[in-house]
């Protein structure tokens, strides 16, 4: 009994050490974005100058807008196409269904370096070229499988008899979908949408290969800035990104159980 207690105590300590490892660099970065010294010198002196100068940096601002626009449009497209595909995969039986479901995994499993370079080659070959439109095409393709997987998981908890009941009460297909099925799977659809937004907003590798100097996204712009040299402005913008994406994830967790306990 005593040994069990001690082991459990060690276990808790261990988890806190892991959390420290995971969060320390992020916390330090956030702190340094409020520090006067551009070379991260201590003692710490409070300032919000770096955030102020962020507002003057037109390149970063326009890249941020690009990122947001692409993420919003990609999310809408992914949610519509993904929900439609999930419903079809759930409702109908046909040959090749297994294959279609299996085809969702290559985009998730293949390293983005390979997908990104392949997109660059193909889009160049067919005349789409690089730029924001190419980035949008790529982001939707990367996020779509996640949306289909998440919405399909939610559909697994749906009883098809409910659709039957609505139909026998005289509802047509459209009414059944709108009034019965969609409300039930809404948490899955919202979680899928938040997923898609996160995948697109945080996407670096694919955007990197598909962007041009004028048409670029925030992560690509940050990468360029890091390679040119550290500036505290990057700390500031990075801190904002981390806060935004973590908030998004917390929101997603509210709509979708990841632990699979429910």
């Amino acid at each position, binding site marked *: 009994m005593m040994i069990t207690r001690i082991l459990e105590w060690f*276990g808790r300590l*261990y988890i806190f050490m892991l959390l420290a490892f995971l969060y320390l660099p992020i916390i330090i970065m956030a702190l340094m974005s409020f520090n006067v010294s551009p070379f991260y010198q201590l003692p710490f002196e409070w300032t919000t100058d770096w955030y102020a100068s962020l507002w003057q940096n037109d390149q970063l601002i326009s890249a941020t807008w690009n990122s947001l626009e692409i993420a919003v449009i990609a999310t809408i497209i992914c949610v519509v196409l993904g929900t439609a595909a999930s419903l079809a995969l759930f409702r*109908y039986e046909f040959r090749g269904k297994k294959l279609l479901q299996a085809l969702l995994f290559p985009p998730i499993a293949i390293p983005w370096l390979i997908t990104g370079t392949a997109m660059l080659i193909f889009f160049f070959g067919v005349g789409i070229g690089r730029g924001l439109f190419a980035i949008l095409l790529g982001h939707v393709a990367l996020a779509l499988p996640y949306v289909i997987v998440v919405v399909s998981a939610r559909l697994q908890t749906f009883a098809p008899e409910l659709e039957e009941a609505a139909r026998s009460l005289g509802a047509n297909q459209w009414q059944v979908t709108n009034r019965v099925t969609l409300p039930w799977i809404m948490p899955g659809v919202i979680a899928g949408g938040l997923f898609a937004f996160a995948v697109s907003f945080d996407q670096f590798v694919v955007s990197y290969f598909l962007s041009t100097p004028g048409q670029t996204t925030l*992560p690509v712009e940050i*990468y360029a800035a890091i390679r040119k040299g550290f500036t505290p402005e990057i700390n500031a913008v990075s801190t904002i990104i981390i806060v935004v994406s973590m908030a*998004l*994830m917390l929101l997603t967790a509210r709509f979708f159980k990841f632990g699979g306990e429910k």
Partner: protein
Amino acid sequence: MAAQGAIASHNGLRKALPWLAPAYLWLTVAIFLPLSAMVFFSFMTDLPLSGKPWAFTLGNYAAFFSQSLYLTLLLASLRLGLEVTLWCIIIGYPAAYVLAKVLKGRSREAIFLLVILPFWSNGLVRIFSWAMVLREGGILDTALNAVLPFKINIDLMYSYPAVIIGLVHSYVPYMVLTCYLTLQAIDDSLIEAGRSLGASRLQVLKRVIIPLSMPGLVAGAALIFVPVVGSFMEPRILGGRTGTFYGTVIEDQFVAVFNWPLGAALSFILLAVVLVILAVASPVLKRAN
């Protein structure tokens, strides 16, 4: 009713198609056709678009096998993938165990969320945050010198360990997540049964817990190993000159050297290696289902 069912099943594809087509057309245009185009391009001498003459060639693949540099870098990337995966198992598995079997209720839920939360924040930004910690005169250096009575210089920046630390930090939540899911599914009574039959803690761990959580370990390992072998941004930022790996060489072909056909061949070789590894891992995963 039965006849209707038969017709529905017969017409299944026709009915499903309008709902499925947009999503799968998009995936075809943006994923499957590009991957095919990459294979095609890897057999060319030059891009056919620039107006320059081109021909089919095996030269790009010959380059991989004739110049030992590429093979060396591929092996270095595979080694990097292996080391990062092992560290993630060593660090992540015990944490997953504590989460699944020691913590209970709300505190478990909250800590689980805290562990996987950073994973969903921007990877590039997290790698960059390590640069601040690891460099000379950085936080680690300053903190250690403030505590220790003697002066030491810690400059891990632009070194192999820095790349390992950054990558482990990025990928360890994957391992915690997959292992947690399988560990949680193990019935506590199995562990108690083992203990009451006289097995030591270590024996229960070896004979019961680890075998039953193997699918989670393998899934986590595959999810970590594959992207790490293809990583290029992390070695570039944290590794500097020592950060040349297979991924960075592919990146160079596309953004610096502009030898796209060679880049395509190198990418395709990486894809083949990745597919072989996933194929080896998949039987273990299937057995779990």
